């Protein structure tokens, strides 16, 4: 189909002021932007967001506008720079929020109030505002002021206590899995509140506790605690409810290459045995039934690991799939860029940054059949100042220049 008209997206017309910072907050804005919202990250040179200083940098230019991870993780957000330490900056934020449907923030509880940007303050400027406050443990309760980073947040959910090699100590997920998860889930919370606003005309202040949102993933283990008093432990890559055997990651040929294999029923087991060339050990009576295989999973894994080690991880996955076995290569970061599935789906895209260089970020990671989602790379600081202050807020040129000169728009 030939058409130059942009396809309508579901959240078009929704405007968002995003005070969120580092990773989780910007992902909230990004998610809404992929869905059609107009999103401005509100930030300042008075305290540059630390995510802007994360290496590596585009073209090796080590400054706040060239962090490659920031360009990917903040894609879709615009940027306006407002110095909130100056009362005129706070007034400017109020003017912007009056034109917005949604405000997002992920500072510690109480910080926005101190800035004069608390929910009650903002209602005077936007009576039907939807505001999302995301903090480690929520806006009230004994752990309200808890200090964590996304990296360590899982510790207070029980999730870290389930992660690690079989019966070993807890192993960290070495980056903040919780951040993009919470960023996306927060966007869901906002869309729920927008649906409520559409029906009732009322906005609201969403109390988003990262602890509670992430602990949802612990639900299955929590139910075992509720029902049986068990508290869970490290299982390596074994199935969390012992419903599969094998269920693990096995070595393949080459440096640090692996394959994941899971067998849930007899048909898949017979497929695996066939793929392995019907080895004598696989006919042992203790492997004849599913429950017996689950019971002997340790020995089973050793045998399979001895077999997989000779094969290429991608070729072996394809071969096992042709025998009906759930198997997939364990990708490295390098594998992601030439993974056949991700390549075909256009997961990673090369884009031109407004500052004039090419870089690789992720594109729409969900495919929608009627509305094409896209998001420009993470903004340079103040990229949208003129558009927002001169255009949207109708500020005279002279005043705009004064506020820039006086480091209010800064």
């Amino acid at each position, binding site marked *: 189909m030939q058409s130059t008209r942009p396809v309508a997206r579901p959240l078009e017309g929704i405007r968002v002021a995003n005070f969120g910072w580092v990773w989780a907050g910007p992902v909230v804005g990004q998610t809404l932007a992929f869905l059609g919202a107009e999103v401005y990250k509100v930030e300042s040179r008075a305290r540059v967001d630390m995510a802007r200083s994360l290496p590596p940098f585009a073209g090796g230019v080590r400054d706040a506008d060239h962090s490659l991870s920031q360009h990917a993780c903040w894609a879709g957000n615009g940027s306006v720079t407002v110095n909130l330490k100056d009362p005129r900056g706070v007034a400017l934020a109020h003017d912007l929020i009056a034109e917005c449907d949604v405000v997002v923030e992920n500072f510690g509880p109480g910080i926005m109030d101190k800035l004069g940007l608390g929910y009650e303050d903002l209602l005077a400027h936007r009576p039907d505002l939807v505001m999302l406050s995301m903090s480690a443990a929520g806006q009230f309760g004994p752990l309200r002021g808890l200090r964590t980073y996304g990296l360590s947040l899982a510790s207070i959910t029980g999730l870290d206590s389930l992660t690690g090699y079989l019966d070993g100590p807890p192993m960290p997920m070495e980056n903040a899995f919780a951040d993009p*998860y919470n960023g996306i889930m927060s966007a869901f919370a906002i869309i729920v509140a927008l649906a409520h606003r559409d029906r009732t005309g009322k906005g609201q202040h969403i109390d988003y506790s990262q602890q509670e949102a992430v602990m949802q993933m612990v*639900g299955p283990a929590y139910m075992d605690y509720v029902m*049986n008093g068990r508290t869970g432990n490290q299982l390596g890559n074994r199935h969390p409810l012992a419903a599969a055997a094998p269920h693990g990651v096995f070595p393949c040929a080459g440096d640090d290459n692996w394959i994941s294999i899971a067998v849930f029923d007899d048909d898949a087991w017979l497929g695996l045995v066939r793929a392995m060339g019907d080895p004598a050990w696989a006919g042992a009576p203790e492997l004849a039934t599913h429950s017996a295989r689950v019971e002997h999973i340790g020995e089973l894994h050793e045998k399979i690991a001895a077999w997989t080690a000779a094969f290429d991880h991608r070729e072996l996955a394809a071969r096992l*799939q042709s025998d009906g076995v759930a198997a997939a290569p364990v990708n490295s970061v*390098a594998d992601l860029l030439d993974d056949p599935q991700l390549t075909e789906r256009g997961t990673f895209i090369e884009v031109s940054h407004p500052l004039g260089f090419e870089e*690789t*970020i992720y594109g729409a990671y969900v495919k929608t059949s*009627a509305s094409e989602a896209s998001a420009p790379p993470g903004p340079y600081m103040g990229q949208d100042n003129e558009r927002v202050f001169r255009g949207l807020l109708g500020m005279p040129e002279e005043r705009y220049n004064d506020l820039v000169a006086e480091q209010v728009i800064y």
Partner: protein
Amino acid sequence: MTDGALAGIRVIELGQLVSAPYCAKLFGDFGADVIKVELPPEGDAARRWGPFPGDVPDSEASGLYQFLNTNKRGVTLDVTVDAGRDLFLRLLASADVLVENNPPAWMRQHELDYASVAAANPNLVMISITAFGQTGPYADWNGCDLNAFHLSAAGHRYCGRPGEPPLQHGTFSADFYGAVTAATWGLAATIGRGRVGGGQQVDVSCAEAIAATFVGGQNIGGYAQDGIFDRRTGVSMGLAAPAAIIPCKDGHVWMLVLEPGQWDGLVKIMGNPEWAQPEMFRDMFVRGENKDFIHAMVEEWTMERTKAEIMDICQAADVPATAVFTVAEAAEHPHLRERGYLTEVEHPHLGTLATLGAPFLLPESPGGPRTAAPLLGRHNDEVFGAEIGVSAGELDRLRADGVI
């Protein structure tokens, strides 16, 4: 009917295990009318996965099923036979959303792919969640949570020791991640139908969502530009120290000290030990270069104390250290009780059953579990009879034929 935020939205779930059920649960927790369709005779495989009270298998007592299916009505329907499929399409005609996580080939085989359901209801949003996605060379591969998680590179990059297998989280984290992603994009598509001009298919790959937003976001720009990439270290973020899970007297603590003020606080708490005095250690990168030493010395201090003591005194000094809670410790924490996160539903067989509350708080339109997961086929008469208008005689025939 409920007065939740999503009241008036009807969701049909044709899914099982974790991803589609959790996605539909998110709709139901905030007031949507969710009807879960299970295939007779056994229904959702989660009913057989447990955990079970006392480890006694009982398809109406599975903890996994109970957790993932609150606030749903349940019907049984064999959509693989003509009479069942026809009834399913009638049900879809009354719905806003279909959530499913079946193999794409299975959906095609039974003429339940997007083109087929859109013909029955062009305003329907169809949310499809699979390990790999609806398109691409792996679209028809068998895939489970483990396969999806590790295809994303999350384990290879971030979890496990060098030379040892990359690790998953120990729960169904790829399924959960895909479900949350699907609920977000799917709900937007639902409330945005007026702007988009009708329904559409929302195609979520659990692997792709994590590969993009978690691993790719932090790594792909650098790899594409410089051709170098990192792998798991078994410790943590290597740039700073302490930045690791460290053993203590009764378990483990997450010690994560970055800013100079945080380090000063920790040094003071530890009683100003000699080894921590060098001025250069105020720089997190210098500490990172000496992380083995720093971690060993901090461990000498933590091993003398419990995780609760360490968390309390560190937090009081603005040092972001946290206890690694066991599931039991998280489940019993007064903070979560006070916030109402630990909640209960009434189940006809299990009595009062504890479960987790809504993932976030909406004061104007509260969410969270209200009713327990449905018994198999519990709402067949109510949904097919009263709401879809199937006659009593026809219902009897469908039952006799095993369609319901």
